[in-house]
């Protein structure tokens, strides 16, 4: 089973553009990351720049509207995530519990959906979803003669 561990650092919603974690924080987190890797459960991990450098696209009336960050209304934003492969939800929670998280940090544990989780009619409606999800990026689709 694949799980995302979503790191939600309080305060990150209003962090200045270019804010990066300190060397100490990175060192502590690297130790944890290594633990995940040594246990053979880590699939991938990423950190995200603060929302001040991002944008939100909403769809009022079905039309896209772009708002640059930071987002005044946001109370929780992502700081990064890990994707892990484990045998159970409890194991994912156990791994999240071992993170050297700070007082202001929350990790949300969420299972990644598999196509087999859905009933057949939804699977049919979603035909091609996996393809879209995993289409090779950055490659020209055109085939030369």
């Amino acid at each position, binding site marked *: 089973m694949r799980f995302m561990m979503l790191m939600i650092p309080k305060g990150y919603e209003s962090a200045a553009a270019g804010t990066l974690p300190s060397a100490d924080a990175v060192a502590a987190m690297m130790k944890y990351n290594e633990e995940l*890797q*040594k*246990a*053979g*459960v880590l*699939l*991938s991990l990423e950190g995200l720049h603060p929302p001040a450098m991002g944008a939100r696209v909403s769809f009022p009336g079905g039309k896209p509207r772009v708002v640059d960050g930071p987002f005044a209304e946001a109370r929780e934003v992502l700081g990064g995530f890990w*994707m892990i*492969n484990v*045998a*159970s*939800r*409890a*194991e994912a*929670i*156990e*791994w999240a519990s071992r993170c050297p998280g700070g007082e202001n940090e929350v990790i949300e544990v969420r299972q990644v959906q598999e*196509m087999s989780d859905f009933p057949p009619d939804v699977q049919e409606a979603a035909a091609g979803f*996996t*393809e*879209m999800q*995993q*289409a*090779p990026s950055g*490659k020209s689709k055109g085939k030369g003669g």
Partner: protein
Amino acid sequence: MASHETHRAIDAVWRIESAKVIAKVARMVQEVGLAEEIAQDALVTALERWPQTGVPDNPGAWLMAVAKHRAIDYLRRRKLLALKHEELGRELEMEQDMAFADVDEPGSGDDGADDYGDDLLRLIFTACHPVLSTEARIALTLRLLGGLSTDEIARAFLVPEPTVAQRIVRAKRTLAEARVPFEVPGPEERNARLASVLEVIYLIFNEGYSATSGGDWMRPALCDEALRLGRVLAELATQEPEVHGLVALMEIQASRAKARTGPSGEPILLLDQNRARWDHILIRRGLAALARAEALGGALGPYALQAAIAACHARAPTGADTDWQRIAALYDALAQLAPSPVVELNRAVALAMAFGPATGLEVADALLAEPLMKNYHLLPSVRGDFLFKLGRLEEAHAEFERAASLTRNLRERELLLARAAACLPDGTPRLG
């Protein structure tokens, strides 16, 4: 926390910690079977206490401490017993005193709570020791390193639970009787011992991978477990190119898991698979592991070569983009390193794709005298394909029919008969 939640948490902690605890205790008592019993005792203690006290802040350290105390108790008792037999010889006693010196005081002479790597590596080498049968190695590895219960192992291998339990008991006894030391093998036997470890991991992977449809849910879990073990080993034996080669091979093969069967469970051959359904996270990991193997230098071993072949497919956006010349060259290397008729047949296919069916047919024809290929349906199937492409339809027809008669897979048989029929002139019934 509700009791059942605590039990689930304990299961999770056990899965993460059991191998480390067993490895540490085995280092102390120098016996894997006993170490597992002591670790199990610690687990039972947790199952008794945690529902009342709650899961401790550092559950791994808690389990380790309880297990270590039990191990020390055991060693003290054994030492006392030895003292009682003083008349048997002071020398023996002194020897034992020295042996116990570093375990009598927990914390001193200890290699630190985090540095469990060496012990874990010893445990892997011991569980996969060549003194054990292949089946015993597999069961013991899953039990000691995967934390799987005998019931889970039994379901994964579709055998009765008592059979697995027996296998594990006998394996532990064999290790004890053979006085297999709890250590990482020295340089002179390291390669052979590592080969045994890699074989066990790959067998576990294939056991899960070859069950294509309708299998017990435990079987896919075997692939996951083999991959996990491979990744763990890759971080313990970072300088072994074949470890990274095997991990690369498993990651790339696993990446195709969702594309290799059709809606009704029929197998889909690699070249016919929808590549958009390949798992690109696993492909990326596989290519990275292969790069690690290559970066260590030297000629690639059999696993790394197979991974390199798998990588050629993984890198090709479509079947038509496949670099068959490189695949043929890799099969050449593999055939020299680990020659087998099956590798040779694959080499023939790659050569045919790269340089035309006549080249492939030459290699395939050389296999006709091979006794192991006598009843192997893929040889006539492959020859039939080459002959068909060369326009030698009569011979192709005979080969496809022969292949159809040899395969035990119904769907494959239908496919081969259809190919055989396609070799005949339209609508002309075959005479004679």
